[in-house]
């Protein structure tokens, strides 16, 4: 649970930290689409250059970013194994009736790169953007949905509060687990059903406490004159500057190049 770094802001002063969150959201989206467009080496070079540039510009230690990958190691292993053994083509190795093909190796490498790039790329965004800036960006990008009476501000506020309370609640879960263990609760033995049942005495107090916290927080927000988004002003209003347009240009270049590698080569 702890190894998932999504939503872990890394404070630093870099170009990426100063970018408008809308740009970062759109760029991440464009980057992910590009990842799924590219198929061969030239395309992957484009995406790699883009990702490397982002990682270097973010000034986040690469080790920190790679740590996020540990959460998906299992998924990567499965993907690699399935790809290695199931893609038909020129056989490379075979044993016990299982064949590894050249095409399978290519495909496995491609899929693994794709997964690694996907996680690393999106964690560049979450490392350089505070969750509240993210929800501000989302709110701003979703503004057109207001026409359809989507409560954009409320959703953004809910997301940012949820993000703020994740570490607090996860800490609390640990405390409750320890407290129940001290009362001889057994979380580690028995089959799946038994283990799942063992977690009920953890979830019940956790829920009660979450509701209490929600109630406290709502009171505190009311005491600080919160009354929805209509009359609110912003300390850090979202304003585009030159560098933001530059990054948009880079996004456009990336997606064009990726399409070109597919169409022309």
């Amino acid at each position, binding site marked *: 649970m702890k190894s998932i770094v999504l939503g872990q802001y890394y*404070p630093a002063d870099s170009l990426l930290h100063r970018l408008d969150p809308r740009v970062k959201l759109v760029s991440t989206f464009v980057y992910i689409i590009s990842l799924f467009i590219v198929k061969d080496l030239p395309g992957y070079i484009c995406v790699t250059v883009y990702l490397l540039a982002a990682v270097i510009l973010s000034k986040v230690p690469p080790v920190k970013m790679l740590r996020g990958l540990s959460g998906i190691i299992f998924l990567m292993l499965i993907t690699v194994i399935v790809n290695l053994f199931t893609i038909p083509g020129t056989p490379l190795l075979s044993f016990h009736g299982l064949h590894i093909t050249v095409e399978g190796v290519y495909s496995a490498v491609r899929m693994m790169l794709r997964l690694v790039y996907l996680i690393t790329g999106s964690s560049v965004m979450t490392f350089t953007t*505070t969750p509240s800036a993210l929800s501000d960006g989302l709110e701003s990008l979703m503004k057109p949905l207001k026409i359809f009476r989507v409560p954009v501000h409320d959703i953004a506020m809910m997301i940012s509060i949820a993000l703020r309370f994740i570490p607090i609640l996860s800490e609390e879960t640990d405390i409750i687990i320890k407290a129940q263990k001290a009362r001889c609760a057994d979380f580690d033995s028995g089959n799946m059903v038994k283990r799942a049942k063992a977690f009920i005495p953890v979830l019940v107090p956790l829920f009660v406490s979450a509701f209490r916290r929600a109630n406290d927080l709502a009171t505190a927000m009311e005491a600080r*004159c919160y009354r929805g988004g209509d009359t*609110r002003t912003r300390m850090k209003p979202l304003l585009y500057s030159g560098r933001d347009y530059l990054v948009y240009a880079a996004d456009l270049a990336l997606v064009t190049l990726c399409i070109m590698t597919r169409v022309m080569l």
Partner: protein
Amino acid sequence: MAANRGFTPVPWAAAGGDPPCHIVAAGGAAYGNLKARMEDIIKTEELGFDYIRRNENGEVECIVRAVDDVNISVKKGEFVVILGANGSGKSTLAKHLNALLKPTDGTVWVDGMDTAEDGLLWEVRRTAGMVFQNPDNQIIGQVVDEDVAFGPENLGVPGPELPGRVEESLKAVDIYGLKDSPTISLSGGQKQRVSIAGILAMHPTCIVLDEPTAMLDPAGRKEVMRALLALNDVEEITVIHITHNMDEAVNADRIIVMDHGKVALSGTPTQVFSRVEELLAYGLTVPDAVMLAYELRKAGIGIPEGIVTGPQLTEALINEYNH
């Protein structure tokens, strides 16, 4: 709401040159003179509040009178401590001062505004800011400066003015250095000071604190108390501090003791702490120095009344020894 549209920022340091209060508050005569020049920031008249519990059918199951016939008034610039055991109604009283609860009976005025009037709700809440007990459950922002800006943002303070407000508020509680820190990484005392700064940024005339130190360690308690005393002294902000920690009451201008929803005692720390037996009967303790002086006096040693702090007791003991 309509009241908010016409919002104009009010300079928070009170205009005029009133001397910091607790210099004069200790002596009765000087207090009386000053009193005439200060106006009531908070006033309750025959305030009563019932908690009503209903069963599933919406029928009234039981009524608990949490606050009963409370008449208090707090002057601008005063540092008032409200003491009381659990269930004495002190938190319920606090919630009335911020219009989070509306009186069942009687009236509450905040800076002349009736808290029961809907149109004044946001101005009341701005004037009397409130800090709560649990440091984690009242911080909304992920980063310190974002959290401090939350209040003024809600008030519709123009964007360019906000960083200045955040800066002055954080400096007032001495944590400007943590401006860009994630709130989750702060200590309890620091979190509570962020909460206080978040209220200050709304430029209140009065801060109500509902047991802000109850969940803190001794160091955090000291941090918060130092910040509160400085705010009261330097910025002349009225502080209403609710606690059951006696040591925090020693420096107050005035102490109000609540018991079973009523005001049981009211006066300067010296006056209140001279009634040791009554305080014990209300389920409270008294500061160690007061308790020791009381026991010594009971044992027949000539210690004068009105001793509140350790140094005072030491001095009295030395005097007694020299005689």
